[in-house]
């Protein structure tokens, strides 16, 4: 629930949003929609965090934090909800899937400087190569510009994760550099590729794709923290 009191003019005025268990849909594209994280989603994180394929391809600090820092505690949800340096959204397919297909987030958000990092994790192998990750990255980038006031988004990719590199390029990201031998997978060192996109380039992608965000009206409702 969020309410507002105007103490000068009208006394109490309010705008209640009734809690809903399914989260709030923040953005909707052709293939996927993005919604806020909810406490039941921690069960999904619990499944995903132990997937060796995800660990190798993404090496998500978000999932690692859930497992190793928070020991898979329910308190992780409140920590994420109150974290002013990241926005975590759940990726749901518009058709054909009964469960979320992944997570997309902006993290290390620097609001005053206007930049943040992007991480997209498509967890369901059957959902890979269907454009879900591309669209999720695109939608959250629009969200970053519209809602957070970002002027730049960055992403890092392991050199063997060609699929992610292609997804970023399809969204207008440019490779800006290479962190040489920056990632160790337990057997050898790999390069990490750095990608970036600026606000006007994001807007060019938006004009090209004709997807306008954020939604005119949010779907679902906000919920009180647990």
């Amino acid at each position, binding site marked *: 629930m*969020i309410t507002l009191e105007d103490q000068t003019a009208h006394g109490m005025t309010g705008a209640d949003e009734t809690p809903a268990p399914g989260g709030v849909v923040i953005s909707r594209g052709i293939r996927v929609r993005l919604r806020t994280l909810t406490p039941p989603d921690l069960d999904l994180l619990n499944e995903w965090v132990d997937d060796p394929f995800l660990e190798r391809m993404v090496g998500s600090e978000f999932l690692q934090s859930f497992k190793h820092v928070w020991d898979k505690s329910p308190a992780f949800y409140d920590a994420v909800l109150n974290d002013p340096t*990241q926005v975590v959204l759940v990726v749901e397919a518009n058709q054909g899937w009964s469960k979320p297909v992944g997570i997309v987030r902006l993290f290390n958000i620097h*609001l005053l400087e206007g930049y943040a990092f992007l991480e997209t994790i498509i967890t369901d192998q059957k959902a890979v190569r269907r454009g879900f990750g591309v669209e999720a990255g695109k939608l959250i980038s629009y969200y970053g510009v519209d809602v957070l006031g970002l002027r730049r988004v960055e992403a890092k990719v392991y050199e063997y994760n060609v699929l992610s590199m292609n997804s970023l390029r399809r969204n207008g990201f440019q490779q800006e550099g290479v962190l040489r031998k920056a990632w160790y997978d337990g057997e050898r060192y790999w390069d990490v590729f750095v990608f970036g996109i600026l606000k006007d380039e994001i807007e060019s992608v938006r004009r090209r794709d004709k997807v306008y965000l954020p939604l005119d009206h949010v779907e679902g*409702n*906000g919920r009180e923290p647990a």
Partner: protein
Amino acid sequence: MNAMAGPQAETLETLGRLRLHGPLTAGTSRRVRQLLGDHVDHQARLLVDLQAVTALDATGVAALLQAQRAVGRREHGLLVLRPNRIVSDALKHSRTISAFVLWNG
């Protein structure tokens, strides 16, 4: 000027006061920005009471920054936040606290 004259006083523009309750997060940010925007449009000097805020994420901080910048563009514009512990921690953690005027009264 008469050096013996008494203190002078003038009435300044009134300070509007808003009180926000609940979470200022991604799920509510659109409404928060709308509410803040509506009041910033009509009030150049605003106190935003955040004592009853229960959660604040990057979208909530961004909404406050947006209001701060809108007020700052106006002549004699002033936005003062009255934060609770949750809000103070979030502003520190997001490294935006220096952008705001805070009142802890």
